[in-house]
């Protein structure tokens, strides 16, 4: 029971990653709408930022999996 609650809390890191990636995507769409000629550079930066933001969610997920299956 305790382990399951702990895993649930660990997976809550996904919240931050979701909000972060959503904000980044919104801003990048805005930027592309303003300057369509810079779309390549903007999407490059977007992918990079998303990868960095997503990493936190992945760490939370890994910890949850380790808690459930390795204990």
């Amino acid at each position: 029971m305790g382990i399951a609650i702990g895993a649930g809390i660990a997976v809550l890191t996904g919240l931050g990653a979701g909000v972060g990636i959503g904000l980044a995507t919104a801003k990048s769409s805005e930027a592309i709408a303003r300057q369509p000629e810079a779309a390549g550079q903007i999407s490059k930066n977007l992918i990079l930022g998303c990868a960095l933001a997503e990493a936190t969610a992945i760490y939370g997920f890994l910890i949850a999996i380790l808690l459930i299956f390795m204990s």
Partner: protein
Amino acid sequence: MEDIKAELVAQLQNKTAFEIPIFGGIAIPQSVAVSWGIIILLTALAIFLTRGMQLRPTGKRQMIAEWLVGFINDFCKDSLGHHWRTFAPYLGSVGLYLACANLSGLFGVTPPTKDLNVTAGLALMSVVLIYGASFRVHGLGGGLKKFAEPVAIVAPLNILEIGIRPLSLCMRLFGNIFAGFVIMELIKMVIPVVLPIPFSLYFDVFDGMIQAVVFVFLTTLFLAESIE
């Protein structure tokens, strides 16, 4: 719940593919065997695409090879400036290997990147490349001075980054592929028909490609920062 747990744990073990019968048997893990397969595939592809090259290409094969190499070279030129030629072959090889490794799940073999040891090795290679290039370009004193940039007070953080960068590179790649694998297993347990198809498309094809690109991209970015 218990049998799901047991099956997942069994799937997570790095199985031994076969043993080489010398020195009392050297165990070859599955990830290494699949990696060898990918190496053979890529080598065969390279030989096939570059056979009978001409100064004025007439065949389709040479066009494909030139497009691929040109794509990697342009990417390196954009991010690394005039040092691009030294690093383009390594970055291109890692990108091609990762793309094949992440896609190999589609063909029913275990992706090598699901093994933490493979991603850890790749991350270590990246970090050696990054700091090695820094010392190579700036010399010993200049390379050490890079740790005290932009101001001397951030030097401890820069030294910490030697450990953090490979850890995050390795965990990002491993975690994504592993997460996709676990979620796919869970979906297959709940509804084994039709539903896994779109999810497999996302986790195996889209996510795998993105992660291969991100790994190479981050390595290039750190490299550009260290040799500037």
